[in-house]
């Protein structure tokens, strides 16, 4: 009787051990939510995947696309592992007590800029008085708008802000508004390529706020610090590689953008080059890619608070975790 029992037990143990071992060597799966739709701006992660940086860390990443304001709560609630979101969004979330953590910075310079057709004669913030400005009335773009107005002493009541979602280009070219707020590395390139003569008022001339970066939920830091470290390291390597091999990086991006026509490919290449310019700043050249200065965060928070965008301030070390950066 005992002998029979052993004969049944042995294969079970063997199979169990094999499965366990195989499972150990299989990479950990995780998801990264990137904003809206595939875009060359996500190059570091496309590169990290293609060049095997994730694989080397034992991680398999699935790319997800959705609005940052939808991804952030999911990440904070632990329903999603990682996402990309703007620094201002992190500050807004934290002011509502939402437990997100900012790990690594993509845009060392704050991307939004005010753009107007040259014919409007708008060159500086003061020219915006009594004009109509179109922008998505939330998040990064709204913050930039308020910050630009605030730091140049123009009252918000002196301008007319209109919510146009992500239809900035059409709104500007159809002259439905006088100026729009767009990302300096993206829509400006497109407008120039369409042959429009434009004036740009970049936000980094007026203040230094923190731009988009990699975020995760507080729980992830506690439960899976190894995974977090892997993601951050692979991401930084991706940035590094892309900066050194821009053409190859672009080719890798194209794999995620099969619908692009020839004309658009040229434009997107320029967008990538413009984006890479803002991955670096004086500070990142000092400390390394992905670093953001806690003071820049404090300044951002202060600005948002005095502009009435947030009602509560949080201590920076509660949500800024640079410990995973190389």
């Amino acid at each position, binding site marked *: 009787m005992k002998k029979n029992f052993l004969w049944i037990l042995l294969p079970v143990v063997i199979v169990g051990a094999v499965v366990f071992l195989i499972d150990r060597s299989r990479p950990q799966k995780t998801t990264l939510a990137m904003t809206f739709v595939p875009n060359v701006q996500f190059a570091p992660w496309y590169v990290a995947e293609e060049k095997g940086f994730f694989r080397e860390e034992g991680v398999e990443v699935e790319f997800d696309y959705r609005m940052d304001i939808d991804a952030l*709560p999911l990440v*904070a*609630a632990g329903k999603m592992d990682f996402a990309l979101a703007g620094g201002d969004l992190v500050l807004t979330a934290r002011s*509502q007590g939402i437990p997100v953590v900012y790990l690594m910075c993509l845009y060392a310079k704050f991307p939004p800029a005010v753009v107007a057709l040259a014919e409007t004669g708008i060159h500086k913030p003061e020219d915006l008085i009594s004009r109509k400005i179109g922008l998505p*009335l939330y998040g990064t773009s709204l913050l930039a708008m308020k910050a630009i107005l605030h730091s140049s002493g123009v009252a918000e009541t002196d301008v007319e*802000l*209109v*919510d146009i*979602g992500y239809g900035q280009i059409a709104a500007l070219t159809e002259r439905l508004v006088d100026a729009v707020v767009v990302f300096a590395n993206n829509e400006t390139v497109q407008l120039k390529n369409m042959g429009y003569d434009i004036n740009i008022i970049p936000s980094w001339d007026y203040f230094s706020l923190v731009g988009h970066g990699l975020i995760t939920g507080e729980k992830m830091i506690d439960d899976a610090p190894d995974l977090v470290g892997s993601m951050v390291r692979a991401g930084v390597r991706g940035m590094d590689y892309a900066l050194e091999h821009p053409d190859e990086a672009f080719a890798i991006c194209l794999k995620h953008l099969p619908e692009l026509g020839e004309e658009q490919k040229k434009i997107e290449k320029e967008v990538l080059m413009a984006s890479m310019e803002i991955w670096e700043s004086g500070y990142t050249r000092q400390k390394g890619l992905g670093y953001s200065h806690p003071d820049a965060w404090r300044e951002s928070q202060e600005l948002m608070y005095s502009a009435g965008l947030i009602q509560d301030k949080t201590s920076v070390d509660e949500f800024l975790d640079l410990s995973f950066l190389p």
Partner: protein
Amino acid sequence: MDKKRILQIIRRNYEYFSLPLGLLLFLLIWKTAAGFYASFILPSPVEVGTRFQEFQRQGLLFRHFFVTFLEAFAGFCLAGVTALPLSYLLARNTFLEKIFTPYIVGLQAVPIVALAPLLVIWFGFGITSKVLIAALTAFFPILTNGVVGFRGTDRRFREMMAIMGAGRKTVFFKLEIPSALPVLFGGLKMGMTLSVIGAVVGEFAGAGRGLGYLVNTARGSFDTPLIFVALLALAVLGISFYLFVSLVEYLTMPWKRRG
């Protein structure tokens, strides 16, 4: 009053008790579910109530409510005024129907969410584009029901009218319209509630005011209780529209009243 009497009263008038009881049950389920989630995912009824009071005090809620109400109502009227006559034409004339149907079906198949941004670009960010989007959304159920209603005139009634010597105009006013009313109202009820959806979709595509716009701005500041306030306001708007059409239906069709 003892327990038996109370139960008796409730049983006899259960219709009147069902609405508040249903509401209570809904709130109970909500409160329980909210206990399992952080307030930025699913706020509790109390949190939403507090946020509502706060927002109300700022006097903004009514402004947004009124804008969406206007957009939806105007859109609905526009849809009705265009769809009803067209439905009669299509019901009575098979030749026209064969020509128009492919275009109508095609247009109906295009999701309004995809068309809305285009309409906002063409017609601006003001109320016009929202009215058009709402009208477009309400148009098809009104049209479809109109065609069914006008087509469904009983042949025997038509013959009766002919025997009585009725001319085309008389047949239209005294037979075709009253005969089609029940089905028409079904379409109008659908159209009325859909027009609210249309208005909100329009606001999502680009607006400066309205309940849909409010949902968006609340999303952007992670103010989930405010999202719920806006959603509940939208529900109230939809329900009141529905009740309005039902009232008109009740008054217009006395022969359908119970008892």
